[in-house]
């Protein structure tokens, strides 16, 4: 029962879904969605940091500006996947 998510728009601001908890793990973090009861694995500590801080940026692109350029494309794909599974949501 996954929640239909809007298309991912990097120009919008996103934040960690308030229904999602992040549990630090040696490889990054485990994300648990209390609403859909789905688990996801964030497989890079840098990605965890990015996701945690996402809500303080006006857009995803702005948040990614602080990330090393070579990692931006892969982080962007990861964020799109997280948006598709409702782990991150557009800012209200």
């Amino acid at each position, binding site marked *: 029962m996954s929640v239909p998510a809007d298309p991912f728009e990097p120009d919008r601001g996103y934040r960690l879904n308030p229904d999602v*908890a992040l*549990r*630090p*793990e*040696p*490889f990054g973090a*485990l*994300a*648990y969605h*209390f609403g859909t*009861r*789905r*688990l*996801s*694995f*964030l*497989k*890079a500590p840098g*990605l965890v940091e990015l996701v945690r801080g996402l809500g303080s940026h006006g857009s995803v692109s702005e948040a990614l500006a602080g990330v090393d350029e070579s*990692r931006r494309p*892969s*982080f962007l*794909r*990861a964020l799109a*996947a*997280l948006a598709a*599974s409702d*782990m991150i949501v557009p800012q209200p």
Partner: protein
Amino acid sequence: MTTVSCEPVPALAEQFKRGLAAPICLTWEWTYACNLSCAHCLSSSGRRDPAELSTAQMRGVIDELHHMQVFYVNVGGGEPTVRPDFWELLQYAVSRQVGVKFSTNGVRLTAARARQLAATDYVDVQISLDGATREVNDAVRGRGSYDLAVRAMANLAEAGMAGFKISVVMTRHNVPQLDEFAALADRFGAQLRITRLRPSGRGADVWPQLHPTAPQQRQIHAWLTAHADRVLTGDSFFHLNALGGAPLPGLNLCGAGRVVCLIDPVGDVYACPFAIHDAFRAGNVRAPGGFAEVWRSAPLFARLREPASGGACRSCSQYSACQGGCMAAKFFTGLPLDGPDPECVLGHGEGAPGDTPPPGNDHSHRRVPARRTAVPLGMPGVRVPARRVAADLGLPAVGVPARLCGSSPLAGVP
């Protein structure tokens, strides 16, 4: 379960082998008391243990799981619902954001309880059923147990508890019923879950007679491949991946002590739910440091998180597919832990096994002394050694819902 990967890192399974900050799949057995005496019970349940955790101690463990961010637990037993504080503990766990999926034979799932469950967020119910027909089910789980389970399923469906699980342990006698189980699940709006029979607990007694034959192993694999989208397995059939083809969904690794563990009713922590034996006991939640300390620091768990050698399986072309199979299945059939699984689909687990280990702690109902003769299971051609409780399958007191238990599993429960 989804993986969000963004750079070349070792496969998730490789990460998991080194262990996690807390288990992903924690089984917690709330009591050894049970109204049934299933022939294959992997925890040899029946009688309550006088040393079982009190309500306050149970709440303490729930608090600890909350702090460790264990987001859900699989609660079992024994029959967990016969604990008088079961519903109170369920509510407490949910209130602490520790979701509960509990396994039950249905004995306490009245219409009113089913409505209560349907109204409680964050709870899943799993009804154990080992035959799609009364005859096949009751031969293993005891007389009356099929009707008990079906009544509970009807109550859950009636209450609108959509998607509850029907959990089936695959045996030689129910493999031909796979389609019937799926139809039964559809009838009740439930989801089918099938798991592997293990030679653990009383399962050791019936393993030779009940574990699926080699052709049936292939049948299970084919059925799982065809129905992957509608059946859950608890990742328990990864040993079948050696048959080739696309890997079955799941982690494909032995999670014991890495992502999985068991807390038993007296607070002992074991590497996995199928390994209730001194050899796999890592500690106790009552010791200083509690469960977290056991999970993080138990020497047994540290060993299980070291890279596996592969042993005799190392030269096999399929080792990467099956990972050598199930540790508990090997242990309880007397096979070396770094060798092939007793159900190795390539036949490498056959041959001359060593001595099987003495049974672990046994809470089976005390009944008439075990006879040494084989006892009919109630089906033609099925015979079970008379060791321990299997001798008593035909006794009328087993599984009669109106009478919980001859030796009162609830005696002394606070």
